[in-house]
């Protein structure tokens, strides 16, 4: 399973990479929304882990673009600064859920597992129809 991690800070990217690879995921790291969209075109991802606050194009913009072209890919939103509003907005735009930085490694892995499990359940149901 391949996960795309989008964050403007290297330390966050590296942290995620360390945790997720240890948990057995394949990881691609990009520093911006534009890079993320580029990466999306050549790869197939099981999940996107997106930071909300980034310079230039932010996480919300990215989510909108992704939902337009790849509506089935689940997105996990993370942020170090958030309000109830931002969380609500993210969920409304199609984010699977939200995780606050800094998180415990186990917390992140657990959250991703839950999302994927839910998606699979979903997919099975939808599968026969396609």
């Amino acid at each position, binding site marked *: 399973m391949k996960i795309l991690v989008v964050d403007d800070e290297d330390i966050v990217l590296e*942290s995620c990479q*360390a945790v997720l690879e240890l948990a057995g995921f394949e990881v691609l790291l990009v520093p911006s929304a534009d890079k993320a969209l580029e990466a999306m075109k050549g790869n197939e991802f099981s999940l996107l882990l997106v930071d909300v606050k980034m310079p230039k194009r932010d996480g919300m913009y990215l989510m909108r673009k992704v939902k337009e072209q790849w509506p089935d890919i689940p997105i996990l939103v993370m942020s170090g600064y958030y309000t109830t509003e931002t969380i609500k907005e993210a969920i409304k735009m199609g984010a699977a859920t939200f995780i606050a930085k800094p998180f*415990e*490694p186990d917390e992140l892995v657990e959250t991703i597992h839950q999302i994927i499990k839910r998606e699979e359940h979903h997919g099975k149901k939808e599968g026969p129809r396609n």
Partner: protein
Amino acid sequence: MLYSTRSKLIASFLGVSLLVGAVSLFIGGQLLYKAVFSEATNRIRLDLNAAREIYLTRINSVKVSLNITTLGDEFRLELKRYDAPKLVNRLRRMAQHAELDFAGIVTGEGKTLCRIGTNPVPIEESQPVNPIANLALKRGVPVSGTVVLSREFLSAENPDLANRARIQLVPTRRAAPREAKEEASGMALAAAIPVLDGDDLLGVLYGGILLNRSTTMVDRVRDTVFQQEIYKGRSIGTATIFFNDLRISTNVLTPDGNRAIGTRVSREVKEQVLTEGKMWTDRAFVVSDWYITAYEPLVDIFGERVGMLYVGVLEAKYADMRGKALTVLVLIIMAGMALAIGLGYLLADKIMSPVRRLIKASQRVSEGNLSPQIGPISKDEIGVLQNTFKDMIVSLEERDKRRREESENRLLQSEKQASIGRLAAGVAHEINNPLTGILTFTRLLLRRRDIEDKSRSYLQKIAESTVRVRKIVKGLLDFSRQTELDREPTELNRLVGSTISLMENQALVRGVGIAFEPGENLPVVTLDRGQFQGVLINIIINALDATETGGNITVSTGISLSASDTGRKGVEISIADTGCGIPPEDLDKLFDPFFTTKEVGEGTGLGLAVSYGIVQRHGGTIRVQSEVGRGSAFTIWLPVEELSERRKNTGC
């Protein structure tokens, strides 16, 4: 407005003086009239006595003159001889001397011997004998007094007398009706003296004065009794002799200035005096004027009431006296009224000037000047008002100051919150990313087995510190969050109840009892459930932290009026504990961000600051009561909007 107070005061003064004046005028007038009237009637009674005395004296003088004549020896001789011509001469001299109108002699046999009239002798048989002479003859003693002489007798005495006696009756208002057109009889003062020679009766000498049209006696009464007093060109005193009810001798004048002979007395007087024989003293209408009068009956020699004696004074004099007195009274009252106006004006000024200053002062106060001049303090009730006003201003000032302080506090609090919020927002973002690195790699390192114990414990410390930083940053974020409230109508008891359930486990672990006492009939409140629950949890956790094992926490709800917001309706949630309490010097700082008494790592000092912000954004307040060693009570007050209350009422 001031002028109206003044005019009210003056009007009431005027009213009082007018009332008193009117009453005293009325009573004074009445009393005065009574006094004057009774004085006048008393006087007139005395005057009547004097008049009677004069009348009797005159009778007596007639009698005396006759008596003197009878005592002369020559007279006796002439009488014995029936020497009529000589006797007539003698009688004529006597009559002239004594101003008699008639005189004569009757013989012992009852025949008139001679008279002083126009045909003194010889006397025809048919001519009647004068009645008074007859009486003296019959009784044999001297007789004197009033006597009525009919026309017959008068013409016998002297036809001139009969003519003089004839009086035309003048129609008079208020007199008793009388058929005759004229009075032919006369009334006279007369005396008759029997002349004795031993036991023999030689004859009777008689003589008298005809009162009809005589003026001497009434004028003498007027001149002696009333001393010719003149009032407005008229003699004030009058006297009259009545024959029956007819004025035969009087100095009462008719409007054209003649003596009122021929007019008659009023019926009431006639009835009382002539018919009943009583005296009359009262005011009476005499001919054409009001007089204060006295009448008494005249009784003739036979004991019959034949006429009246009258004196009277013009009432006008007394009425004018009364009028003058009343005028003086009216002047006094008017002076009193003028005084009342002046006094009222001055008094109103004196009373109103401090009041006016107070009014000006209160205008100043309403314009916002809280230290206005109110002038010197009076020593009366106005002074009390002034002092009360001063106190009021002082307390207004205090309240103003308190309010200002309160709002300054609130402003300070929210400014603090805002600046900390901005800081927190920036910091949170910058810190949370590196924290993610620290936490992640520390945890990953800790998973390795090849790490020696010492390093492991170091790593452990890094992880704990990071978690602590995370907690602080989260607190800062919570504090800075100025998010819009997501309000929903909420049943407060349910929200509080569910929050307490969340906390029950923790309480149990710490051995602290937690009880809920829900108030009844609470109105529905609209609030942000999530944020409000955060507030409750915060305060309950604080209470748990402060309470030793075995202590208690009591949460209660109820309806209450706001303490600060002038009686606005609201609900209250109170969280009371039996914990350590808060020292007074800390009470002020409780809601400051970062104020904590808890150990480093335990408390952030943000819980109450955040709670305060949330409650404030709901329009509510948090109040703290605490006593060191006994416990604390945090009371949250929330306003209730009328609308939600009404909705609830109609829903029931």
